[in-house]
């Protein structure tokens, strides 16, 4: 390998196609080093380590479930609150009631209720005054 390519490798600079080929060949030539590294000893963690991991996982698992339940409760509460708010806001207000009644009264066809009552009372009064109708006697129980 030439010095220029080596400096490029150290500087992690881009290499030409030819240099990339040279690098591949150099890597293939290092097969013995690869074998040496692959035969390095394995490290097996202890049973105590595994037991501790299980405990930590279990704690995390429970915490995650708890947080999930809390999120569900929070979400459900939020939905309920939104529904309640919607119902409150969509109900007609007192002002709306009054204006609606006024609308009914002013827009209804024919005499108003009060006018009708007054007319009926006056007619009944006149009829009894003219003798067409007997005045209604007050019936007192027990007499």
């Amino acid at each position, binding site marked *: 390998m030439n010095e220029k390519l*080596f400096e490029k490798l150290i500087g992690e600079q881009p*290499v030409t196609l030819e240099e990339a080929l040279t690098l591949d060949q150099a890597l293939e*030539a290092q097969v*013995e080093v690869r074998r040496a*590294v692959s*035969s390095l000893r394995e490290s097996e*963690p202890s049973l105590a380590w595994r037991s501790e991991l299980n405990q930590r996982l279990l704690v995390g698992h429970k915490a995650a479930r708890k947080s999930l339940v809390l999120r569900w409760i929070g979400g459900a509460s939020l939905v309920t609150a939104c529904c309640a708010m919607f119902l409150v806001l969509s109900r007609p207000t007192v002002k709306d009631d009054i204006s609606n009644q006024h609308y009914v009264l002013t827009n209804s066809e024919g005499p108003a209720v009060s006018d009708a009552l007054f007319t009926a009372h006056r007619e009944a009064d006149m009829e009894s005054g003219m003798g067409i109708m007997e005045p209604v006697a007050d019936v007192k129980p027990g007499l």
Partner: protein
Amino acid sequence: MRRQLDAAAEQALVDQCRRQDYEAFGKIVDAFQSRIFGFVKRMLRNDEESADVTQEVFIKAFQSLSKFDGRSSLRTWLFRIAYNLCIDRVRRSERALDVASLDAMGTELEAFDLADSRWNPGALLDESDFLEVVDKAVLELSEKLRTVLLLHDKEDLGYEEIANVVNVPVGTVKSRLFLARAHLQKAVTKYVQTGGSI
């Protein structure tokens, strides 16, 4: 002991874990614990800290398996978590142990003309001594070089997978691997030639 999972078994376990199946995750731990622990141990060079970080790797994996999209293999994903946690630890404790930095290696260029298939120091040392020398030389490497060397030569990850773990281009992975092996070759050759102690 290394346990292997085939792709179908791995996928089935991942699906079970996504449903918060604690038992299934235990099988994943069984399959990868020694590999992850070995990698972390050689990255951090501290047994106690390595045990702790390896646990963190699995806890983090369990918590974020729902985010595992399956674009990379489970093995690559786990090594990426392990690598990131190791780098975080090293940076947090400000242990930038770049013993054999890239710049320092440039001073002994002649040692890196390595198209030498005769390199076989194992024949000169008994196996345990040889492995100890190799292990020591690996620990002397910078984090960048050590990561690539361990993932490729020890854990058998491909160039693309390593590029994915370390987040660098494939070309950079190759150049780092070459430099790491070159350092190792030089260290072991020196040991053999001088008959030095470990």
